[in-house]
């Protein structure tokens, strides 16, 4: 037997030696802007093998010494193909032409990796151009709301930005902007998201079958990558809408070496209203606005080294001022994120690529007031938030076309500030000074992770992504560790069909204490502690994928997700109760299962998709609903979305969106009775009090939600710029969709509050 092994080993080594191989590697980028193309396809017809570019446009393919027929393709770009005799390692940067600039060249995107060829399942990528065509609320294009139109992803309520992915809550989504976690994605209580579509290059959302490189949240990973800035020419674009205006400018600092992009957005209701408010009041005025700024610089040292510095700053501000000369009062609250990422790409060799990232993310909520009168000053301030410093190194290793290995480590330092109240008194007359802070002290924690995964191919039909993710969390002397297995497989059937299956385990160490439904800025991020354990989930999914013709993609996926140590407010508790947060919550389990259908047309004059989700979503906590299982608030049996966009010609396009969802489940008080409460244990002393009681938790349903939005774009090429005039309407047939329900004591009736009837919008945008 030993001899047999020796023989096989020597034989194998001989075969491997005999197959001389060389590597073609480099970057794939947009020919006009120099933007890196993510997940562009590289395919060799001769060996029928291929690969894809990574997040930084890097690709590497190792092939036997022979003639290779390579094609490089990307959706919306003309495919480049060529034939060479491969007898040495080659570095090659591929520049693909955008189809919009290629009016005369036939675009052959059929080489783009088809959905059935991808191992990864439960992942959705929506081009930003398509997101921009979806009719938006008040004309403000919103990435998060576009995601809500996809199967398995639900909105919480009318107009809100939170994502409920396969039964998870919004805090279970890891939202990464250039690799940095963003903790609050809402402007104006969730009616708008913090992401400015003009600054975004690409958006992907993974809701299951998580590769090992992802971790830290239970339900989804949403990666948003900012544009890098045009390396060759200066360009700008902007828009003026009824809510906000924005402007983006990009271009080279040093041509082909360094580029920048800056994008800014601000609402202006307060600016428009201020002269009228000031005129009509005695020195008292107030307002609200939000703004955000995205900026990025990238520098290419050479083909091996590249540096990116990106930052995002966004703030919502509510303010109130009163000043009559002697007496001055200022009050208000604001909240916002600041994120920064410094990334260094290093192509170590033709098969190994490294990316080192340093990240900073801060979310802070401030509530304050200050009164000044004569020589006295009184001030109070409440702050809460979370601050992260992190570092990570990720490696991509492509030894041959059958293996794409990724591995890496990361560490993150969290500082949780779950609410501190500062009181300041300064009285010159009495020499009385006070400056004190009351409330929770910041909690510091460290989170670590390491991972390894291999996206491998076995033969022509079978591929798998097998990985392992290990994470640890240290807080207040307590250490949690979590090994997590990740497996995704694909089997290609005859006729461009594929069956896919996946299993993934996830652990989440940080939690959001929130009022479900409304994205309040007071939402509080808190860590796992000695008493509050990390949330955990495991998910299995089975799916079928097929491309019909060249234009249509079909997927059907079924999934089951089990969740443990989920966090919920105890019955009777609220964010507003004055007690330590750990005493207000309890942990329980949840399950979510369902079936998702997705048909998408990505090419042609008419594009769009139909998504349908049939799902069940339950929760069980020991002391909620008497320990009985109950439907989650966002248990939505049916969820349908239809998104269609049609371009009549280069100048006019129409788009429409129709959504339908089963009503949210709610708990309503249904009856009242006299409760008998013994006081001393011998029945001689008791109290009789009226109590109002709900039935089982969440056993009522709001009315179904449905809505039609339409929009039209009118484009015109001018001499030096292109302008687009957009008009449309949200909720065209003015459906009174339920937002919340309350009991009107004066009339003994439940009332349903609906937020948005038909809301028209217009928007003017330009590009140069």
């Amino acid at each position, binding site marked *: 037997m030993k001899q047999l092994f020796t023989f096989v080993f020597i034989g194998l080594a001989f075969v491997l030696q005999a197959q001389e191989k060389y590597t073609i590697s480099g970057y794939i980028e947009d020919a006009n802007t120099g933007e890196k193309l993510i997940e562009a396809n590289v395919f060799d017809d001769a060996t029928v093998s291929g690969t894809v570019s990574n997040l930084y446009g890097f690709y590497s393919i190792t092939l036997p010494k022979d003639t290779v027929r390579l094609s490089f393709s990307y959706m919306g770009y003309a495919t480049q193909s060529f034939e060479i005799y491969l007898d040495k390692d080659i570095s090659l940067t591929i520049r693909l032409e955008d189809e919009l600039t290629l009016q005369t060249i036939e675009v052959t995107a059929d080489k783009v990796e088809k959905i059935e060829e991808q191992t990864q399942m439960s992942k959705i990528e929506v081009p930003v151009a398509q997101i921009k065509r979806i009719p938006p609320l008040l004309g403000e294009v919103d990435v998060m709301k576009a995601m809500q139109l996809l199967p398995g992803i639900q909105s919480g309520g009318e107009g809100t930005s939170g994502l409920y992915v396969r039964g998870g809550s919004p805090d279970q989504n890891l939202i990464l902007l250039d690799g940095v976690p963003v903790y609050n994605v809402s402007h104006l209580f969730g009616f708008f998201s913090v992401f400015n579509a003009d600054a975004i290059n690409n958006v992907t959302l993974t809701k299951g079958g998580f590769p090992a490189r992802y971790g830290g949240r239970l339900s989804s990973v949403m990666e948003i990558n900012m544009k890098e800035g045009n390396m060759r020419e200066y360009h700008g674009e902007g828009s003026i809408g009824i809510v906000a205006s924005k402007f983006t400018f990009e271009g080279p600092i040093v041509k082909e070496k360094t580029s920048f992009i800056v994008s800014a957005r601000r609402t202006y209701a307060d600016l428009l209203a201020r002269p009228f408010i000031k005129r009509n009041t005695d020195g008292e005025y107030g307002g609200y606005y939000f703004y955000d700024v995205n900026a990025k610089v990238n520098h290419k040292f050479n083909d091996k080294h590249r540096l990116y510095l990106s930052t995002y700053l966004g703030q919502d501000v509510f303010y109130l001022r009163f000043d009559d000369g002697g007496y001055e009062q200022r009050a208000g609250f604001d909240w916002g994120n600041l994120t920064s990422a410094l990334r260094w790409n290093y192509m170590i060799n033709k098969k190994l690529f490294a990316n080192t990232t340093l990240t900073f993310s801060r979310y802070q909520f401030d509530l304050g007031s200050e009164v000044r009168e004569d020589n006295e000053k009184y001030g109070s301030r409440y702050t809460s938030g979370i601050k992260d410093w992190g570092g990570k190194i990720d490696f991509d290793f492509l030894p041959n076309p059958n293996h794409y290995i990724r591995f890496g480590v990361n560490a993150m330092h969290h500082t949780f500030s779950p609410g501190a109240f500062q009181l300041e008194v300064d009285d010159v007359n009495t020499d009385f000074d006070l400056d004190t802070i009351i409330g929770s002290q910041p909690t510091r924690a460290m989170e670590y992770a390491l991972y390894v995964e291999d996206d491998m191919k076995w033969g022509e039909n079978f591929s798998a992504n097998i990985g392992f993710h290990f994470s640890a969390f240290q807080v207040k002397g307590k250490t949690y560790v979590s090994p997590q297995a990740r497996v995704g497989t694909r089997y290609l059937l005859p006729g461009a069909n594929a069956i896919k299956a996946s299993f993934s385990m996830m652990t989440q160490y940080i939690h959001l204490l929130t009022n479900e439904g409304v994205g309040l800025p007071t939402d509080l991020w808190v860590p796992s502690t000695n008493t509050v354990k990390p949330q955990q989930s495991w998910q299995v999914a089975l799916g079928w994928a097929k491309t019909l013709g060249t234009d249509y993609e079909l997927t059907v996926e079924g999934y089951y997700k089990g969740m443990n140590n989920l966090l919920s407010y105890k019955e*009777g*508790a609220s964010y507003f*109760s004055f007690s330590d947060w750990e005493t207000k919550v309890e942990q329980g389990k949840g399950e979510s299962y369902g079936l998702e259908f997705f048909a998408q047309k990505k090419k042609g004059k008419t594009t769009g998709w139909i998504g349908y989700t049939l799902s069940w979503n339950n929760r069980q906590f020991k002391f909620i609903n008497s320990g009985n299982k109950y439907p989650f608030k966002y248990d939505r049996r049916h969820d349908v979305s239809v998104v269609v966009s049609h371009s009549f010609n280069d100048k006019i396009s129409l788009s429409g969106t129709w959504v339908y969802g089963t009503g949210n489940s709610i708990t309503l*008080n249904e009856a009242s009775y006299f409760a*008998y*409460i013994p006081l001393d244990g*011998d029945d001689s*002393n008791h109290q009789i009090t009226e109590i109002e009681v709900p039935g089982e938790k969440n056993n009522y349903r709001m009315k179904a939600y449905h809505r039609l939005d339409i929009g039209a774009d009118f484009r015109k090429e001018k001499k030096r710029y292109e302008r687009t005039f957009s008009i449309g309407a949200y909720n065209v047939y003015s459906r009174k969709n339920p937002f919340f329900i309350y009991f009107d004591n004066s009339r003994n009736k439940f009332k349903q509050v609906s937020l948005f009837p038909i809301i028209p919008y217009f928007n003017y945008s330009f590009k140069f």
Partner: protein
Amino acid sequence: MKNNIIYIIFISFFMSSCETIVDFELEPHEPQMVPQCLSNNLKGHVLIHVAKSKGIQESGSLDFIHDANILLKENGQIICENPSSLDVGNYICSGIELVEGAEYEMEVSHPNFNTIKAKQILPLMPDIESATYEKVGAYDPLRDNDYDRMKIVFNEPAVTEDYYLVQGFIKNKTGPDEKAYSLWTWTENPLLEETVNSVGLIFTDEAMNGDKVELDLKVDNTFIEPSEHDIYIKLSRITRDRFYYMRSMRSYEESTYVPLAEPVTIHSNFTNGYGIFALESANMYFIQ
């Protein structure tokens, strides 16, 4: 002028997006009997209170049910049948000595309502090893109250899932038939939770299963005069239903003061209805 036009356009768009309020129809509520019976082995009787539920959208006042038929069974044998109604919907089964480990079933019926039932097994009496009272007279700023200390040591049996209620009592020393008054009791131990009206503390054996347990309690000393009062500590092993009921009542009480509080489901063990039938085995321990 330009600003005015922009402002008017802006306001008109926002005015059109004002909230609208419409009626939300709920199925009419069918009135139900709500029996409430919390009893223990020390009372010598079983008191049942039967209220009548009213739909939240209905007008009119709340009421009790005075002519319900009540059946109480011990291990399948009837021990109390149709007790007469006292005041405000109270019914009393007198001369009942509840037996540890026995199964009790309560059935409440009425011609106008569906018959409802609930079952309970009386838990075993807890084994108190010792209890002490210490005059401290200290001030607790969190409760804004002076307090003394009570300590109790008891043996928590392994294997079983147990629920407890601990209470402090005082009785006048003037005679054996004096009434016992419960004391406001609290603790820093996060495993213990206060009950509605703060007449005791409830807890589970989750973190102490099978241990010898020592509880350190603070008691309101406003009314305690050791020379005039006998001091008792009562430890009860309560049923799961009683624990859940007391906990939900406490949460309900707290939620009435808190904006946007999560709704509280009052625990019930009557199938398809409201109400509670819950038992406890109490050990009243004389301290001094």
